[in-house]
C-alpha cells in the first residue's frame, strides 16, 4: 500500500538479519520476493537498537501481508507457499491474518499445485489457531484430480491427506468417496502414484471397516441387476454414493505391469492382517528410483527368451504383395 510502511518494515527486517542469525532463514525466504532485493541492499546499515520481539512480529506480519498483497508471479507464489508454514507462520504474532490469503490460494481452481501447497499452511493454522474452514473435505475431495498423481508434490499432499482422514469419526460415505475417487484415478495414474494409492486405500479400509463393503459385497453380487451408483462428477463427497460401488479399479491393478505393484495390489484379495502400512515407504517413489532398484539386481538365471517366432520386427514400407510373415509390430516401419 504505502511505500513508507514498506520501508519501515524493511528497516526492521534488516535489523534482524544483522543482529540475529535466528532470523536468517526468513530473510532467505524473503529474498525470493520481487523488488525487495534491491531495497535490502540499500538498507543494510547499522541499527544497533534492540527491538522487542512482539514489535518485530507485528512489523514482520505487516510486512509479510503487504508483500503477499503484491501481484506475484506464479512461481513466486508457489515458492512462498512452499516455505510459508515452516519459515513464516511461526514468526508471526497473528497468523490468522494469513487466513484470507491461504483460503484464496486454496480455492484457486485452474492450477492444481497451488491448493496442494496451501494445504500445508492451512493445516498449520487449523492446528494451532483454531481456524475453521467450511467444507474442508469437499475442497480436499476436489483436489483429487488426475494431475495430482503426476505432480511432484503428490507425496506432500498424501502425507497431509493421510492426516486429515486419520480420524475414525469421519462418515463412511465421505471415506468411501475418497477411496473410490483415488481408485478411479489409479486407472490412469503413474506407477509411482499407484504405489501411493494402494497402501493409502488399505489404511483407509483398515480404519473404516464399514467401507470393506466396497471390496466384498456378496449380497449385491448374488442379486440380479446391479448398477454402479457412484457418481464421478459429484463434487460433494457426502453425495457420491461411492459406498454402494465396488473397487474394480483395484482388482484391475492386481495385474499391473510392474510386478511389485501387482503383488502389492493383491493384498486386497487377502485377509487384512496387517495393521497398517507405513506410508513413508511408499510416498517418494519415482520412475527413476523404481528403475534404480531394478538395476541393482544381480544376474542369477538365464533371462527368459521369447519362443514365439516372428519373421519381421516391423512391417515393410510398401505392403503391395500379401505376405504371410508374422510381424512383431504391425503398422510401423523403420
Amino acid at each position, binding site marked *: 500500500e504505502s511505500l513508507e510502511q514498506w520501508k519501515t518494515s524493511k528497516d526492521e527486517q534488516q535489523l534482524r538479519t544483522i543482529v540475529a542469525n535466528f532470523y536468517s532463514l526468513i530473510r532467505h525466504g524473503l529474498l525470493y520476493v520481487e523488488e525487495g532485493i534491491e531495497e535490502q541492499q540499500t538498507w543494510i546499515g547499522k541499527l544497533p537498537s534492540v527491538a522487542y520481539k512482539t514489535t518485530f512480529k507485528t512489523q514482520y506480519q505487516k510486512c509479510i501481508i503487504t508483500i503477499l498483497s503484491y501481484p506475484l508471479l506464479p512461481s513466486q507464489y508457489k515458492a512462498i507457499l512452499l516455505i510459508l508454514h515452516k519459515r513464516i507462520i511461526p514468526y508471526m504474532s497473528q497468523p490468522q491474518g494469513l487466513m484470507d490469503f491461504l483460503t484464496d490460494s486454496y480455492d484457486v481452481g485452474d492450477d492444481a499445485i497451488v491448493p496442494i501447497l496451501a494445504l500445508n499452511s492451512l493445516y498449520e493454522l487449523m492446528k494451532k489457531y483454531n481456524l475453521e474452514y467450511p467444507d474442508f473435505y469437499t475442497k480436499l475431495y476436489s483436489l483429487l484430480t488426475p494431475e495430482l498423481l503426476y505432480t511432484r508434490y503428490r507425496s506432500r499432499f498424501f502425507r497431509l491427506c493421510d492426516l486429515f482422514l486419520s480420524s475414525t469419526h469421519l462418515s463412511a460415505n465421505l471415506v468411501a468417496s475418497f477411496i473410490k475417487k483415488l481408485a478411479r484415478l489409479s486407472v490412469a495414474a503413474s506407477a509411482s502414484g499407484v504405489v501411493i494409492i494402494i497402501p493409502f486405500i488399505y489404511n483407509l479400509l483398515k480404519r473404516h471397516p464399514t467401507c470393506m463393503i466396497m471390496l466384498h459385497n456378496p449380497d449385491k453380487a448374488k442379486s440380479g441387476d446391479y448398477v454402479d451408483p457412484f457418481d464421478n462428477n459429484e463434487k460433494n463427497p457426502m453425495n457420491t454414493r461411492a459406498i454402494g*460401488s465396488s473397487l474394480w479399479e483395484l482388482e484391475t491393478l492386481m495385474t499391473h505391469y510392474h510386478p511389485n505393484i501387482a*503383488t502389492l495390489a493383491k493384498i486386497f484379495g487377502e485377509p487384512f492382517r496387517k495393521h497398517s502400512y507405513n506410508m513413508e515407504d511408499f510416498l517418494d517413489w519415482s520412475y527413476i528410483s523404481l528403475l534404480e532398484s531394478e538395476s541393482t539386481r544381480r544376474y542369477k538365471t538365464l533371462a527368459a527368451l521369447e519362443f514365439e517366432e516372428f519373421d519381421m520386427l516391423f512391417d515393410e514400407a510398401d505392403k503391395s504383395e500379401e505376405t504371410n510373415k508374422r510381424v512383431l509390430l504391425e503398422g510401423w516401419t*523403420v
Partner: protein
Amino acid sequence: MAGSQLKQLKAALKEKGLIGQTNTKSKKSKHNKAEVKRDDRQHKIDEVRNEFNKFDTKINRTKHDVSIIQQGKFVKMGSKQHNETSARNGAVLKTMKMQYNLEKGRRGKTGGILDKRFGESDKHLSKEEKMLARFTKERQNASRKRNAFSLESDEEDEDDDEDGFTLTHSGQALSLDDEPSVKYVDEDYSVEDEQEQPARKKSKNEVMKEIIAKSKFYKQQRQKEFAKTQDEIDVLDDEFGDVMDDLRNVQTATPVFSTKSAESIEYDSKVRELTYDRRAVPADRTKTQEELIKEHEDKLKKLEADRLRRMEGFVDSREAEADDLDDEFWAGGSDEDEEQGFAIKEDGGDDSESESEDEHSGRPKTVKTPPVIMPYTHHEFEQEVSQIEPAKQANHINKIIQAYKPNLAQGNKEKMNNFVGILFQHVLHLANHDQEFQHIVEIVKKLAETYNEKLVGTIREEISHIQSRILKHHLRKSDLVFFVVIGYLFSTSDHYHLIVTPCLILMNELLTSIIYSPNTNVQTIGQGIFTVDVLLSYQRFAKRFDPEVVNFIEYAMLQLIPEPKKMTGLDKILSSKTESRFSVSKTEQINTGIISIKQLFKEEGELKSQLLVKLVDIMDKLVSLYKEKSCLIEILDSFIPILKHLVKYFAASIPNLSSTLTKFTKLQSNLVKSRKPLTLQHHRALAMATFAPKFEENFNPDKKSYDVNKERADLNKIKYQIKMEKKAALKDIRQENKFVAREQIAEKKSMYDEYHKKMANIVNSISTIEGAEKNQYEREKKLRKNK
C-alpha cells in the same frame, strides 16, 4: 550303637584294631597288622575322629518321636531314611552303580574273551572299510617294527641283519664277526696264501661296502640312461608334429615308396578310420511326419507351460507372504527371493546342436588361424563391417561365429560373449543410421540363449543410457527400436524379468515425460504413440494393465482431435485435461499409410492424420486386450466420447472409426449389465481381538484344560505327556552321564593311588635292602677291625 561316648569310642577303636589285646592274634596276622599299622593308622584315627564329631553331622530333629511306614519299612521321622528324595536317589544310585559295573565288566568283550579286533564294535564302519583299516594297521605295525631306527638308504637296510642297528665304540662300528686284529690258531694256514694273493681276503664289512658302492654306481648309470632316453623321447615328441606334416606331404607327393596300389592304400586308410569310428549303434527310427509335428507341438506346449509359470510368477508360495515380501521392497530392501521363482531349466538346445554339427563335419584336423578376426569393440566391428556390402554382412558375422565357436579354442567363449554385446550395439547403431538390421537381430536371437549373461549386461547398460536421454527429452531412433528388439528377444509375459521389467518402467517413464515435457510436438507424440503400441505388444499374452498407456492415449487424442472446444462428455475423461495444441484441421486429408520411425524424428509433415488413425487402431487394440479387466467400463467411458467427437469429422475418411465406436458402445453396455460388485474377501472371517479377560464358569485348579473340542483336548494332553516324557528321559540321560563321569574319575584316582603306593613300596623295599646291606657291611667292617 549304645552307651556313652567314651564307650562308643572305645568300641570303634577296637573295631579298627587300634587298641585292645594284640596277643590273641596269630603271628601271621600280627605281621599283617604291623603293615596296616604303618600305612593306615593315621587314616583310621581320622576316620574315627570324624565319626565322633557330632558337630559335622546333620540331623533333622523332630519334636516327637514318630515312626511311619515308608516303602514297606518303619522309618523314623526326620531320619536319613525318611528323606524321600535322598532315599530314592540312593536306590537309583545303587542300581546305576550295578549297571555300570556290569557294563564295565562286559566292555570290549565278546563272550568271555576281550575282543581286540580293530573296529569290531564300530557300527559306522562297513565291512570293507573295516578290512581295509585292519590291513593298514597290520602293515603299519609290521613296518614300525622293522625300521625302528633305519636311515634313508634302502640297500643297507636289506642287507643288514641287525635292522640297521649297529653297536659303535668311539665312532667305529663294532662287530662280533670281523675282528681283523684277532687271529685264531686255525687261521695260520692262510698266511702263505695271503702272500700268494696280494689282496688279502676282504672282510665282510669291506665286501658289503663294495657291494653298496657298486650297486650305487649301477643305479646312477641306470638313471642316467633313463634320463637320456627320456630326453630323446621329448625331442621326438616335439618334432612329431613336423614329421607328421612332412610324412603327409611325402605320402601324397611320392607314392613311389609304397608298394601298395592306390586302392589298397585307400582301403587301409578306410580301415584305419573305421577303427577310430564309434561302433554303429542302432539309430533312432526315422520319425514320421506326424511324429515330428507332435514332437514340435510338445516342445511348444512345454515352452508355453514354462511361460505361464513365469507369468504367474511363483504364485503358490508368493501369495502367502506377498505383502511381507513387498514391504521389504517398498521399504527399500531388495527382495532377491523373487527371482528364484524364475529359474528356467536350460535345455541347451543350441549347444547340443552346434556340437552335433561339429561331429558331422568330422574332427577338425588342425586348428587353423581363423580368416576372420574377432572384433573387441563396437568401433572396430563397425569399421570392419562398413567395408563389406550390406548383403554380405550377415555372412561375415556368421563366419565370425563359426570361427570362434567355444569348443574350438580356449577363450572363445569370452570372445563370443563380447561379440554378442557388440552385435546388439550394432543393431542400435544401424537403426540410428536408417539401415536394415533385421538379419543381425535374428543372429542375436540365436545367440541370446548361449551368451545370455553378457547380452543382459549390455542391455542393462543401454537401459541406463536411454533413461538419461529420456530425462533430457532427447530420444534417438535406436531407443524406439531398442524396445522392439527387446520384445523380440525376451519373454515379455513374465511376472518379473530382469530386462523386460526395467524396459516397461522406462517406456512408461517416456510416456509420462512426453506429456509433461515443456516442448511437446507432434513428433514426440508420435514417439509416444509408437511406445504405446510396443507396450501393448509386450502385453499381448500376459495382458497386464498399464495405466500410463490409458492416460497417454487420451492425452494424445485430446491433442490431435479437431475443434476440441465442441467436444462433449469431457467430464468422463480419466486423464488430465489440457488444451489441444496440434489439432488436425477439419478438412485435412486423412492418410492411412504405415508410419515409419524416420518420420517420427523428421520435421512436421503429414504425420498428424496418420497418428490419429493409428490412435484409433491402438484404442481398439487396447480394448480387446483388456477385455477381461473389470474397470474397462471406466476406460470405455472416456474413450467413447472422444470417438463420438471424431466420428463427426472423419466418419468417412478413417475406415475403422465408426465400426470401432459401435463395437465399443456395444461392449460397454454388455459390461455394465454383467458387472457385479466385488467379493474379494472370500476367506474365513477374521476374529476380532478382544481385551476383556476370559472367565471360566466352573473353574477348577486341578483341571488342566477347558477345551470344548474333545479331540483337540486329547491331542494337547498327549502332546503335553510327550513333552514331559522327553524332559524326564533327558534328565535321566544327563544323570547317568554324570554318574559315569564321576565313576570314571574315581577309578582313575584309585588307579593313580595304587600306582603311587606301588612305587612307594618298591622304593621302600629297595631302601630296606640297601639299609640291610649297609648294616651288613658295617658289621663286617667292625668284625675285621676287631680282628
